[in-house]
């Protein structure tokens, strides 16, 4: 086997040699450093190779030719080999990153860097506690010295604070070791672990001091002020080393010590880890300095790791699973954190506000995004799998406190990380061009990214039975990223072709029942809208790859089979839609609120899923859900999670802004397709929760009222919008309210109506959004009062919008009528008169905003500035034309849709006898209600009703006088009025007086309150960091004593 001592020897020789060879040439000493780091990394790699391909069970090596406990033993198994490989590779990358600085600051720094690596390697390898102490000292002293690489006052002060804290920790460790030796008579961890030593108070205190020394080194909140200062002020290359190598090695030794600790310590340590995770993340919320922010995140992650290592044993988790979880979290954090520190060094901007210069550097931006998203725990990165496992364990075994803390902490972490990301992506034109990039410094983060992806694939593919198509979204992202240099139209058409082929040959055959329906909505609906994106002139970097990822994950949502499949896909979908929203001009705030609500929802879904029995691979998730029954808690969690995606009242706060700020074409996808994913989820929950719901009438009542109110308030809020996209956003919300209402009835007819509306809403809402996208593109504004009279300039768009609003409003003959008919019928059939009344009222309100939409935009007098507006581009017309055709088709022959829906629903809820389809006619003869609907007939009648008067009018007014749009008499308005007096501005002011109190933004105020409150809490916490080294020392002392007392160690 590869002798681990060579790792140590190589570093030592390197470090001793450097000062000597430096007399010849500085480059020579740098060469020695690189050689040592690469050589040791390759030794570790060789060891890994050995462990995989030749079976050697022997992992321990002794020194001096004596058996332990006489001599010091080193262990070089799989964990150690992997860890040392990563550590040494990171060391090498840090060396590359620091090359210039090291070259300038004297030969000693090179030796010190090598010795830092020696300390880390030794700490990982050794099986002797005192030897561990020695290596810890080497590691720490080297770190102290490297902090001084930046000879600024702040860096020095931080280094000194660190030395004080570290000195205290090693003192405790040494005292602990001394007394523990007294009790155990050995220093070797393995021998020690086999001994049965009576747990007297003295022995426990000795062990307590040992473990607390390592806890302090792991920088727990709140005893970590010194660490934050160091992260903030040290050279970013050194910070990265501390966050990854130093923390990693210390953590591993901490892990090695755990078997020695009495059981009562473990919950204590787990608790400190959790507190550290939650509160560090909370405190970080207010942090503006990038490096310090990373420091908080680093301490938080370490806290979480501490919890995983010490807390999970209570849940009878297999040790290898614990290691897997810890490994996933650790490696993600290890690579991403060092990568971010490296980037922070390249950017050179201290505050996160200034990171928008990244936008000019696509490569850096991508790297930055990858690291941030990995830390957030999004798939496919290892942290995602780790979090998945943790939540599974905790939810199934009732570790609710820990679960809540972890999810809350993760959400907070996502909040500040993604806010930072948003700031970086934000479009700010006044940023100066950055100077040329230091290419040498780019290598380390680049390699880090590759490593991260490799690890992700390894973890995902080796350890889970994922359906083979699960990685299609990523594959699509990759392929289209490679193709991203092609012209937009080519890429788009390729995407359409790819999705078409995939959907037709791969997805469609797997689907049945409601799966087919949602397949049409999610894949078909998205596919048609891809054309809309193609009108852009530029290359639109990143658009098509992300769109590809989104659509593929939407398809996978239907074919996913296991719970993990489903959740993974859900997260892929969230991730890609978030990134697509980010493409909007000033969307970073809206996107943040979107992703935070989505993640919150996803965490609820995750917890809900964890409580469910396992799903078997192979069969689609939605089909299996018919066989399962879930409990109350699970129902509520999953329900809320999916409702967030649909934008139900109360959790709709993200919706208007996200819809308004996303790119116009993407808003269309968001509204018409993506919200349906939430509907799909909700449907599954209702299917699985049948038993619970039968036992609990309250839940369904609550859901139906939620639906009604969403419909009502959505409509009401839409009325008072000036922004056309916000109007449509609220309109969408309102429509989804109807869908929820339909589902909440839990009757065959109710579900049919919900699904039918799901289906038709796609077409008419996408139609309107696409048309409006053209309008906004041509007029350059979203405010309706700045438009007008566009009917002449954009007739096709006008027709689209007209068709759309007829469909939305639910008047005959278009498809909307059918959906309304279904809803009211099913409501009344079940005796939900109040809901029906309010829903009907909401429909009435809908007329108001729809009227406003068509009138202020297309009718009236054109604005002088919009003289030269042209019709929307061809590419935007394509989806509109398709949708118009579909709408006409559905309206004429609704039974082609409703009948399949009914038969799909009947799998879950049996079709009552009194409901029947005959020809074009739907008949219902329930005990309470009789009626029928013939779409074909309705269409003909309506055509007649409208057609004959029209003909008649044309006949009697054969010679009308054509009036120009600017004819003041006929247009009844004066041009050049200030917009505030224009009727289109604040159009329904009078209604506002009457109903305005209903829409005071209470819910938004509530969520703002949550944000503000957590920020001020964060501020309060951050004030414990006074910046004084002695205060920090006092914190450490108090921290130790408090834990001792709280732990009740006796």
């Amino acid at each position, binding site marked *: *086997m590869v*002798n681990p*001592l060579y790792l*140590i*020897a190589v570093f*030592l*020789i390197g*470090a*001793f*040699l450097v*000062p*000597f060879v430096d*007399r010849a040439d500085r480059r020579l000493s740098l060469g020695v450093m690189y050689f040592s780091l690469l050589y040791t990394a390759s030794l570790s790699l060789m060891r890994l190779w050995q462990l995989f391909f030749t079976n050697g069970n022997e992992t321990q*090596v*002794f*020194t*001096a*030719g*004596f058996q332990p406990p*006489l*001599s*010091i033993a080193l262990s070089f198994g799989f964990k150690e080999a992997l860890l040392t490989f990563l550590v040494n590779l990171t060391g090498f990358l840090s060396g590359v990153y620091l090359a210039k600085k090291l070259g300038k*600051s*004297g030969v*000693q720094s090179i*030796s*010190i860097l090598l*010795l830092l690596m*020696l300390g880390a390697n*030794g700490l990982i390898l050794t099986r*002797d506690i*005192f*030897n561990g102490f*020695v*290596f810890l*000292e*080497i590691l720490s*002293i*080297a770190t*102290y*010295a490297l902090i*001084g690489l930046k*000879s600024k006052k702040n860096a020095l002060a931080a280094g000194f604070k660190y030395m004080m804290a570290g000195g205290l920790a090693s003192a405790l460790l040494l005292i602990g070791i001394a*007394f523990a030796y*007294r009790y155990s*008579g*050995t220093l070797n961890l393995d021998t020690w672990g086999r001994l049965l030593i009576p747990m*007297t*108070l*003295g*022995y426990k*205190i*000795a062990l307590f*001091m040992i473990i607390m020394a390592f806890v302090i080194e792991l920088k727990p909140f709140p005893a970590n002020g010194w660490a934050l200062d160091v992260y903030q002020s040290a050279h970013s290359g050194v910070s990265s080393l501390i966050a990854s190598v130093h923390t990693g090695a210390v953590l591993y030794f901490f892990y090695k010590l755990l078997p020695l600790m009495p059981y009562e310590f473990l919950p204590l340590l787990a608790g400190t880890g959790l507190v550290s995770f939650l509160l560090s993340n909370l405190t970080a919320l207010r942090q503006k300095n990038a490096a310090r922010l990373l420091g908080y995140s680093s301490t938080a992650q370490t806290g979480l790791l501490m919890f995983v290592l010490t807390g999970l044993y209570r849940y009878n988790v297999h040790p290898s699973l614990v290691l897997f979880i810890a490994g996933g979290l650790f490696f993600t954090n290890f690579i991403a954190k060092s990568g971010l520190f490296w980037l922070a060094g390249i950017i050179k901007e201290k505050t996160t506000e200034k990171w928008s210069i990244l936008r000019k550097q696509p490569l850096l931006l991508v790297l930055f995004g990858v690291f941030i998203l990995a830390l957030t725990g999004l798939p496919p990165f290892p942290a995602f799998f780790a979090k998945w496992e943790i939540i599974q364990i905790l939810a199934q075994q009732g570790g609710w406190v820990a679960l809540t803390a972890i999810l809350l902490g993760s959400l907070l972490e996502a909040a500040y990380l993604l806010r930072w990301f948003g700031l970086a992506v934000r479009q700010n034109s006044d940023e100066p061009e950055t100077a040329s990039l230091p290419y040498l410094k780019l290598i380390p983060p680049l390699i880090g990214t590759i490593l991260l992806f490799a690890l992700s694939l390894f973890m995902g593919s080796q350890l889970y039975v994922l359906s083979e198509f699960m990685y299609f979204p990523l594959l699509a992202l990759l392929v289209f990223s490679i193709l991203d240099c092609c012209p937009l139209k080519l890429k788009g058409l390729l995407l359409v072709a790819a999705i078409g082929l995939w959907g037709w040959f791969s997805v469609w055959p797997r689907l049945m029942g409601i799966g087919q329906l949602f397949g049409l909505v999610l894949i078909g609906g998205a596919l048609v809208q891809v054309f809309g994106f193609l009108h852009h002139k530029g290359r639109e970097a990143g658009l098509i790859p992300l769109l590809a990822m989104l659509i593929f994950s939407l398809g996978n949502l239907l074919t996913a089979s296991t719970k993990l499949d489903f959740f993974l896909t859900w997260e892929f979908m969230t991730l890609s839609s978030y990134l697509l929203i980010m493409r909007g001009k000033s969307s970073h705030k809206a996107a943040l609120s979107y992703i935070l609500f989505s993640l919150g929802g996803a965490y609820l879904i995750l917890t809900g899923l964890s409580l469910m029995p396992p799903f078997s691979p192979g069969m689609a998730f939605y089909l299996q859900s018919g066989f399962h029954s879930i409990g109350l808690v699970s129902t509520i969690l999953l329900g809320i999670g999916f409702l967030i995606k649909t934008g139900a009242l109360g959790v709709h706060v993200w919706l208007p802004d996200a819809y308004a700020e996303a790119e116009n074409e993407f808003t269309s996808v968001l509204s018409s397709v993506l919200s349906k994913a939430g509907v799909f989820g909700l449907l599954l929950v209702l299917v699985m929760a049948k038993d619970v719901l039968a036992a609990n009438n309250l839940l369904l009542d609550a859901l139906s009222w939620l639906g009604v109110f969403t419909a009502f308030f959505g409509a009401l809020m839409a009325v008072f919008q000036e922004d056309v996209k916000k109007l449509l956003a609220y309109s969408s919300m309102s429509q989804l309210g109807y869908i929820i209402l339909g589902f909440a009835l839990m009757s065959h007819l109710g579900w049919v109506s919900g699904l039918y509306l799901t289906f038709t809403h796609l077409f008419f809402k996408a139609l309107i959004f696409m048309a409006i996208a053209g309008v906004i593109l041509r007029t350059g504004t979203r405010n309706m009062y700045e438009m007008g009279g566009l009917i002449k300039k954009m007739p096709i768009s006008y027709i689209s919008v007209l068709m759309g609003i007829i469909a939305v409003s639910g008047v005959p003959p278009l498809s909307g009528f059918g959906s309304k008919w279904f809803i009211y019928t099913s409501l009344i059939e079940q005796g939900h008169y109040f809901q029906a009344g309010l829903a009907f009222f909401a429909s009435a309100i809908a007329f108001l905003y729809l009227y406003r939409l068509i009138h202020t935009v297309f009718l009236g007098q054109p604005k002088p500035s919009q003289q030269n507006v042209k019709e929307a581009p061809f590419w935007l017309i394509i989806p509109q034309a398709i949708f118009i055709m579909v709408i006409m088709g559905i309206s004429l022959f609704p039974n082609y849709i409703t009948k399949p829906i009914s038969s799909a629903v009947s799998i879950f809820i049996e079709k009552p006898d009194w409901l029947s389809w005959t020809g074009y006619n739907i008949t219902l003869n329930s005990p309470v209600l009789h009626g029928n609907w013939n779409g074909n007939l309705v269409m003909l009648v309506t055509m007649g009703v409208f057609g004959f008067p029209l003909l008649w009018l044309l006949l009697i007014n054969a010679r009308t006088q054509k009036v120009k749009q600017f004819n003041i008499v006929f247009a009844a308005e004066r041009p050049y009025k200030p917009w505030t007096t224009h009727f289109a501005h604040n159009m329904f002011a009078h209604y506002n007086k009457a109903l305005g109190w209903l829409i005071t933004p209470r819910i938004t105020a509530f969520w703002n309150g949550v944000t503000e409150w957590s920020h001020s809490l964060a501020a309060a916490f951050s004030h414990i960091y006074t910046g004084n080294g002695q205060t920090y020392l*006092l914190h450490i*002392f*108090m921290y*130790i*004593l408090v834990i*001792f007392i709280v732990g009740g160690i006796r």
Partner: protein
Amino acid sequence: MIKYILIFLVLIGMAWLFFPLVVEFFTPDITNNLAANYVFGSAADLNMPNAVTAVVVTYRGLDTLGEVTVLFLATAGVGFFLKRKKHMEGIRRPGSEILKTGSEILAPLIIIFGIYIFTHGHLTPGGGFPGGVVMASAFLLLLMANENFGFSHGIINLTETISGIGYVLIGITGLVLLGLNHFLDPRWLGLGQWGRLFSAGAVPLIYSFIGLKVGAEMSGLLDSLQSDGGEQ
């Protein structure tokens, strides 16, 4: 004020934490098993009277290697922080004539004494660390006495490098000659006769390297400290 109360409480608290350790403490009558093994093994396996040296250099040799490294690290660190711009002359006060003459006579003697200490580490108390320090004290003496005493950095560096690498190489020799588990095993050299200078395998050699290295490191440390630490 609150801070002082807290500090007071913390100190009391730490004392209270230590208290059970004291209560449970007793001075035993016999050594534990491990210690007995060490004492026996030191004589039986290594032919070395000084059991502490046996532990330090052989059984727990890796610790000592680390220890030397820590010292090296500290020297490098201090040198790094206080690196001089140029050799600054005339900062030190010249020593008196007596000191000057005395040091010239004494320094070689002290160095010889240091060498004695570390070469006899396996037989008598002492060893590489005190020996190295004693050697460094000779350097200190010269430094104080002679205003223009510029100890050649080349020599310090060379000594440091050679002794350091020598130490590691001796360790590796054990690996190469005796096998996988024999890093720093001194027994590849004959164990010799009990109580002689050249006995206990490579231990005297190791301790010499340690002594030289420690001496060089300490000298370097003192040298860096006495220089004026480049002004910003």
